[in-house]
């Protein structure tokens, strides 16, 4: 081996180690960048959740026990709360799908510009405070509200419909608030479907309806599932709208947790409910993932 070749050999080795340490330094930099966020989540989310969850394993006397959990399954009141929570969440999800899917489909058929303008009508409410929107619905739906008074003045009804302070009101209000969570992922997915796909199906002999069900619909499913998961899980823990539009007659899980603390100061029981809600949400995500495969969302 000549001297020049030997030099070249060590030169390549030297560079290799330099490049390696350079790479290590780079990944450390990225790790460093994430440290503030990791700490923030640890301190603001994980530690409180763990601390609050731990409360559920102590009874009123401050002894370790499963009393709080036992009561959730024994008490008819709590069972009722779970049933109502699921009923409302399912109803809201179903209505959101029935309203949102045709809306998204129609938007994808429009020219980009028109669709963008119409999307603003979906997004502006989305950016408005939940509290403001809920009070707005109260104004519209209450006994002598806009809807009842106009229906009565038109002579369509004789006495006001009971639209607020009950289940109907809660579902109407929640549907309105949840709809964007379904529309946004669904619309994005539908937009990304190549129009040639449907054309291909039609050219191969599918009727327009057949092409929709056999090609467009299956291709829109990842977005639909994402929307359903979002709406359902957000609904499970929803508080403001059912509290205001339900008028005390509708008790969802989040309201039960709140009243357990503010009225009965029973942190243990409230914490147990919270833990069950958290587990339910995680269970839903796991189930949805098992059945539909959330990873499909990222499949192109």
């Amino acid at each position, binding site marked *: 081996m000549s001297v020049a070749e030997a030099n070249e050999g060590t030169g390549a080795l030297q560079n290799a180690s330099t490049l390696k340490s350079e790479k290590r330094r780079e990944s450390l930099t990225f790790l460093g960048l994430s440290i503030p966020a990791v700490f923030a989540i640890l301190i603001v989310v994980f530690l409180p959740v763990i601390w609050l969850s731990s409360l559920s394993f102590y009874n009123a006397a401050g002894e370790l026990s499963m009393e709080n959990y036992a009561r959730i399954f024994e008490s008819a009141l709590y069972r009722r709360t779970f049933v109502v929570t699921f009923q409302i969440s399912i109803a809201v999800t179903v209505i959101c799908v029935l309203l949102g899917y045709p809306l998204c489909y129609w938007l994808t058929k429009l020219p980009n510009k028109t669709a963008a303008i119409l999307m603003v009508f979906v997004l502006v409410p989305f950016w408005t405070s939940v509290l403001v929107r809920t009070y707005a619905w109260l104004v519209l739906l209450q006994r002598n509200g806009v809807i009842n008074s106009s229906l009565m003045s038109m002579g369509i009804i004789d006495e006001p419909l009971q639209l607020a302070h009950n289940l109907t009101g809660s579902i109407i209000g929640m549907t309105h608030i949840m709809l964007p969570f379904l529309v946004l992922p669904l619309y994005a997915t539908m937009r990304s479907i190549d129009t040639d*796909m449907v*054309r*291909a199906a039609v*050219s*191969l002999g*599918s009727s327009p309806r057949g092409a929709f069900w056999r090609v467009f619909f299956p291709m829109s499913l990842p977005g639909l599932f994402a929307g359903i998961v979002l709406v359902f899980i957000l609904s499970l823990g929803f508080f403001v709208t059912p509290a205001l539009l339900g008028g005390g007659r509708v008790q969802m899980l989040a309201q039960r947790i709140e009243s357990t603390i503010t009225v009965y100061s029973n942190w243990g029981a409230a914490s147990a409910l919270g833990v069950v809600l958290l587990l339910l949400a995680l269970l839903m995500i796991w189930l949805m993932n098992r059945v539909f495969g959330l990873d499909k969302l990222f499949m192109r």
Partner: protein
Amino acid sequence: MSSATQSLPIDVSNLCKAYGAIKALDNVSLNIAAGEFLTLLGPSGSGKTTLLMALAGFVRPDGGSIRFGDREMIATPPHKRGLGMVFQSYALFPFLTVAENVAYPLKVRGVSKSDQKTRAERALDTVQLGGYGDRRITQLSGGQRQRVALARAMVFEPQIILMDEPLSALDKKLREHMQIELKALHQKLDATVVYVTHDQREALTMSDRIAVVNHGRIEQIETPERLYRQPHSFFVADFVGESVSLPVEVANDTAQLNGRVLKSILPIAQGSGGHRLVIRPELLEVTQGAVPETANDLSGHVHDVIYQGDSVLVIVQHDSAGEINVRVPANRAGQTGLPSKGERIGLALHPEDTIIVPEHAS
């Protein structure tokens, strides 16, 4: 494939389609013979895709007639036209396997499950993808996806197959390979093929006839060789193949370049906007010494010599008319006696290669 089906001729007449003020199809008439491989060639925005989409039924024309055989199709919805179609993006269904994709048109037509399977397998064999049936689309390379799209378009033995730039997403080598394969496949299938491309070389390679489309009109429709050697307009001459053009004066069927009569045995097409002499770089002959009396003399000085692998491009400064490109094979015969930069070079343009075209076709 079985020969149970018979390919159909396509008759397009007076087809019009306007998008606002832009005429995408300007009174297009076109006859395509049964079993022919016809290419619609043109730049983007020329209307070639609109014409194909009108044949497929995805674009509704403003007027005119489209006939497949003796059946008027202008108002028939696309799913009832019975066409096989290959899209630029392939448009394979990602949620189905390769075999399910190919069987799709059979499933829609209510073919039995076992028949679907055998026919899909046979179609996949035809495109040399036998045994790939159970794969996912995402597991295939670009060239393989292209073959699946082809298999899907022909599995139901359509009498007409439309292809919209099906090879444009492939790299050059694979594209050239697929061109030959597609041409061979067409000879095996009994189907009329209408093929859209903006690649003139692809069109020349594959087609029985080429229709050059420009501004929503068909400029010329001709076999590849005649189209290349006898273009009817400057647009066609310029779009198909390499060329340099020089303005010429035409009077009484005789063209003059700078006052010298051009010898040509090719007819001079009618048109407007003056005439041009079209010089294909490979048709010029480098002469040793004087240019023979029978040929047109385009001699000049060598301006540059560019080595391009398979050939050498010599840029010549003509004595009066400007720059002319000459292509010489990069073998020894082509290279012998090639003058170097600044030297004088003898260039002969033979009468059978002397193409004179009008600026605009009439």
